[in-house]
């Protein structure tokens, strides 16, 4: 009875014009909704979960990455408007990150095109995920366990940030909202690195940007999410246009279905998230990231089911 209902639901197929496959509409809505729920819960874009899942259900990796950039724009816009209303966006910092982001993602798109040409894009996408998710997930896991212990011992929180060599760099700038006086080169460099990775991985990059802003720049947590969302809109929007232009890899229909699912899911997730304590949320998110990295790593090192990869050239009408 239940499986018959499920079959009936899954039978609503739609042909995705750019991905060039038929796929179940409810499946895409559920996927968007599920990832949206998690992103609302944790306050991250969720692209790092959605892109591998899209590849898993049969969307060509290049199209999954390209489309995801477009979907990130929609979810970031609805997110940033909330933070804007609360005055939690540091525009100066956002612009500095953005300058780096545009530079980094431009290079990322060129690398993406080259790798696609040489038939290596799939493995590079997978390795990028394993390395970034693995490193970040482990760092967050350690940090959140320490935070959980601190909460238990009721110890005072650490100092906002330590002064390092980076504070000796030129082009010092006052970022008022972030209460920082640092070199503009620092956010530009961070923006460039995140932009490069997000173009290749098809993610907004919040999961890289947010920790970098907190731990490397020492920004107060209150403005971090709003500011990262602000810059992600522009970088992802820019990547969307480049991906459409250079790689024809953005599927509007796919993006639309995922967005509808994810905005609804994000609202539900956001409401649930408010009721959970921050340290435990961070621990859960870190565990999820590490798990994802592990699964992808296993895929990379396990002997593949198909030893031969087939790419059809041309023949487009």
């Amino acid at each position, binding site marked *: 009875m239940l499986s018959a209902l499920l079959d009936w639901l899954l039978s609503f197929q739609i042909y995705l014009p750019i991905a060039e496959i038929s796929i179940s509409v409810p499946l895409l809505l559920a996927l968007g909704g599920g990832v949206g729920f998690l992103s609302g819960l944790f306050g991250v874009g969720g692209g790092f979960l959605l892109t591998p899942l899209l590849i898993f259900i049969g969307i060509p990796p290049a199209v999954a990455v390209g489309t995801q950039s477009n979907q990130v724009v929609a979810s970031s816009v609805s997110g940033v408007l909330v933070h804007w209303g609360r005055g939690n966006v540091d525009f100066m910092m956002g612009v500095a990150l953005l300058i780096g982001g545009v530079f980094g993602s431009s290079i990322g798109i060129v690398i993406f095109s080259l790798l696609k040409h040489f038939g290596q894009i799939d493995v590079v996408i997978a390795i990028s995920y394993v390395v970034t998710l693995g490193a970040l997930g482990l760092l967050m896991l350690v940090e959140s366990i320490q935070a959980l212990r601190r909460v238990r011992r009721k110890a005072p929180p650490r100092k906002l940030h330590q002064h390092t060599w980076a504070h000796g760099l030129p082009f010092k700038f006052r970022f008022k909202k972030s209460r920082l006086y640092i070199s503009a080169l620092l956010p530009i460099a961070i923006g460039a690195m995140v932009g490069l990775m997000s173009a290749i991985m098809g993610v907004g990059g919040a999961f890289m940007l947010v920790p970098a802003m907190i731990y490397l720049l020492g920004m107060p947590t209150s403005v971090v999410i709003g500011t990262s969302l602000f810059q992600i*809109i522009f970088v992802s929007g820019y990547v969307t246009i480049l991906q459409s232009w250079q790689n024809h890899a953005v599927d509007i229909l796919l993006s639309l279905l995922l967005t509808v699912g994810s905005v609804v899911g994000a609202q539900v997730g956001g409401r649930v998230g408010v009721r959970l304590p921050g340290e435990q949320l961070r621990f859960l998110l870190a565990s999820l990231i590490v798990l994802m990295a592990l699964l992808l790593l296993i895929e990379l090192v396990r002997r593949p089911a198909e030893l031969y*990869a087939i790419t059809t050239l041309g023949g487009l009408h």
Partner: protein
Amino acid sequence: MRPAAAKSIVADIDHHLIAITTDFSGEEVLIFGAVDQPGDVVMSLWGPLTQVQVHRKERVAGIWINRDMVTFGDVPGFYGIAASRPLADILSPGVLEQYRLGVGHLQIKTLSADSNTLQSVNDYQEALLQQREKASLYAEKAGRVNFIGDTLFRANLRLPSTVPTGKFLIEVYLVRDGQIIDAQTIPLVISKVGFGADIYRFANRHGFAYGVVALVLSLALGWLAHLIFRRR
């Protein structure tokens, strides 16, 4: 017009154009016809010919990556056969090869191969055929030819949802006593039409404008979502 009686076999298809629309999930093509005297009917549906790259995965530093590559030409995107009886019972291997009938008899060309793949080009081709068969893109039993009485026949050929677009050819053969007596070819076009096709064409011809539209659409959607959920 040539009178039908001059030929031993006549056949046609219900639609010469198959439209891939947004709800396309594969299609059964109906081919029907008549023969002058009882016999067997074999037909192949194939097209369009493209180039295909086949990479072999190898383990490098513990990770499986694409290594050596062979490029093949004249590879059909779809190749399906339907027959009134099992192929091997109707025609001898020699005749099958002569008429290039069967997945094993496709005339695939090797266009380029890395120096260290020259020895194993056959493995690459075999892998290509196997994967296409697995995806139902190559099928020696894509359908069956059924006779209605002695001279009328009809066949249903199944095309999967992943069938490529382009120009196809249906070759219909009349077989008697292990010999091909007569043949007819029917053209078939599979193309994207409607909304999906418009999107595809727009995306490929005006990539930049398409990107701007995609961006504006998602900006609007994000803003809309904000408006809807803020009111609650």
